[in-house]
């Protein structure tokens, strides 16, 4: 069935995203991985919207895209500031918040 393939694609994208978030040191790459995760969710929404013939999933996906744009904007601004302060965006060096 077609929906299955969508879901598999979404799952694969999700896993790649999770891997990226956990394993990458570069903050920009982590942000990109988060985008991947969000988009895998989008694909799920669209797949189910197609299957159920409802418009809700489309609307949800559009909202997610808009919010993802805002999120990456804030994220990149943070990365930029971190870079200005430390000349590096390696995440594992950022452990001042250690408990």
């Amino acid at each position, binding site marked *: 069935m077609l929906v299955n393939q969508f879901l598999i694609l979404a799952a694969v994208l999700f896993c790649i995203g*999770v891997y990226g978030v956990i394993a*990458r040191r570069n903050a920009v790459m*982590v942000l990109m991985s988060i985008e991947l995760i969000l988009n895998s969710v989008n694909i799920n929404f669209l797949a189910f919207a197609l299957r159920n013939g409802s*418009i809700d999933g489309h609307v949800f996906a559009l909202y997610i895209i808009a919010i993802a744009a805002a999120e990456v904007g804030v994220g990149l601004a943070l990365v930029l500031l971190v870079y200005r302060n430390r000349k590096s965006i390696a995440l*594992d060096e950022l*452990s001042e*918040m*250690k*408990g």
Partner: protein
Amino acid sequence: MFAEASTVAHEALSSGWFLEHAFLIPIIPAVAFALIIFFGKKLPMKGSELGVLSMIGSLVFAVGAALQWIHRVNGAGEGQFIDPVIRSWTWWNSGGFHFGIGQHIDGLSLTILVVVAFISSLVQIYSLEYLRGDRRYTHFFASLTLFSAGMLNMVVAENMIQLILGWEIMGLCSFMLIGHWWEEGANSRAALKAFFTTRTGDIGLLVGTSVLFFSANSWTQEHLGVSGFSIRGLSAWALTGNPGHAAITVGAVALFIACIGKSGQFPLHTWLPDAMAGPTPVSSLLHSSTMVVAGVFLVARLYPVFFKGMNILGSGVNLITVIGGITIVVAAALAFVQTDIKKVLAYSTVSQLGYMMMGLGAGAWMPAVFHIFTHAFFKACLFLAAGSISHSASHHSFEMKKDMGGLRKFMPITFTTWIISTLALCGVFPFAGFFSKDEIIDNVGHNGYTVFMVVGLVGAFMTAAYMTRATYLTFFGEPRGASAGESHDDHGDAHATHDTHDTHDAQAHHGPHESNLLITVPLMILATLALGAGLFNATPFGESWERMTKWVEPRSVVVADMAHASVGETRGVRTDDTVAPPMMMSSTPTATASGEETPVGGEALTTASESSAHAESVCGTSAPEMGTCYAPQLHHAPFKWPKAAMSVVIVLLGMLISWLISVQMYTKKAGFFVGLTSRNKLLALGYGFLVNKYYLDHLYEKVIVHGIAHPIAKAAYWVNQNILDGIINGVGLVTRRVAGWVYRNVDQRVVDGAVNGSGAVARGTGNALRPVQSGKVSQYGALLFAAAAVAGLVLIIVNT
């Protein structure tokens, strides 16, 4: 009634492969764009060859389609409606609405397609030399190609959604190309200004499209089987469906606001001159000959909607003519005080767009469309000539007063092409501009808009005058500044600061010289067309010369009803009316038009054809009782030599006066005109007014932006200080009293005991959990996902 319903004898309308596949025309450059972006840098010519080839490919397709369309028109019967070649596919479905994508090919779209593809090809060839060695060479060609794809897509658009898509692609590319040299602050500011100003207008596009869709959709679905976005559906609805007055007026005005923004009409014209910050080929292609006519094209495309909504021909004045008329004069006046050659041309473009709008507003549809056609050639030529000057003579400067002068001796080809195009722009007799501009003025007067005819003549006078001034400053007199060999590397032009021009600068120091073939050949081709393009619709030489009128103007015939043509329902299948319009109209007119009507015999058919060819059509004045109208009935002014002679005399007078003043002002050291604006207070006032562009920029930035932002900020501050603070202070006071009591009685005794106990617990747990808070984001992420995975597992186990 039935005779009107166009049941004339129909020869089958011919079609052809290019006509049926015209939707490929925008796809070619779109594909090329993707290829350039991904592989351009690895190619031997850095991707530019793909751009040039794709544009030539589009041109071939467009010309092929145009030839087949001409064949189609020539083969059609007199007074027969020439069906546009419409194909439509479902793009997406949402909430029960079909959003289509496809093509709507008729004379108008083919005219613009050919012009856009042709000018784009030449400009890309020109850019090969002009931008040689630029650091973003590949990106430049990618943007230019994407721009052409957007414009072509807008022109072939079958419905408003597709049209908006192309429209916005153009806006984006315009932004990218104006800001091509974004290292200069001024360039990126100009890019932003262009983007935001056109976006302001685009609100109107969205509002207008929605208003029209919701008013027209049920009618078009019922009668034509297409959605309310369809251009064909909207045209028919406006003329046939007795649209509500408010709906169509609001829709037309909203769409026209978008056209004001895109086509640089007053009062949103301020972005266009600033857009000259982009490279010259961009100015030539986007901001003079193609993109800015998008607004004019939209009005021409949906002409029935504007015709009804704005009450064109119904009253002596309407919004389109007023805006067009104001734009002509306002922009022409601004052109007089510019020292930058490209800004003169930019204001001249704004002014010419005003002519087109005014023509459309006054019912002169064909002359306005023809003016788009001729204007594209000579304006592109003028801009490319200006680029050629800055490239080879004035050391990348566009300042006429500082860095040009006397160039006719050094650049004979550029000079000749410039002069030809200037004469065409001014509308001197055998040149292209005469045939279109004079027709607009003539028809505007003929349709009863006398005031606007006078405005047009004044505009022609001013055009002649400021172009003569620019020509004099550039090509005559003594060389000044950079063209005299002076070098000043710190000149304000963005070009000079780029590392790319080191090789070229060596040449520039040798003084002005003619540009090479990649620049001059496009110039010569365009100049030839500036000279000859008028012959495509040479009204003065009689009806047989009015070829464009025959091929392009939609015939205002009442078409037999096609209620059951399943145009909108096809998915991936070509629509019915492209396959078999003749069959449908010739075999079943009586059945579809009215059941009780007896079949009409042969003689009746011929008389019907005679009458519908020459008599008045009801289209435009009232809705036909049967059948459908797609185009309003318009009239053409009969050509009269005395009128034409008068306008040519006005133009020549403008040139002469301007020439004399220019010689006085710019060459003589002393004289009446030298420093006149600093001596005479009134003139100084006017000069300042013009130099500051009527203070419109001040109005937008200082008054509107500040005027709206500041009061809101002040009001918010006042509310904050007086109301919110008062409430908060009051609440605070009460809270303090209550808190005091609570503190003494509850807190000290009951809570503290509990808190101390829980504090001890928390400290213990905190110590235990401390290693988890490593401060490393990735570890947190891993924990988060691990927890989510566990939760997911639990969920699955619980549910099964």
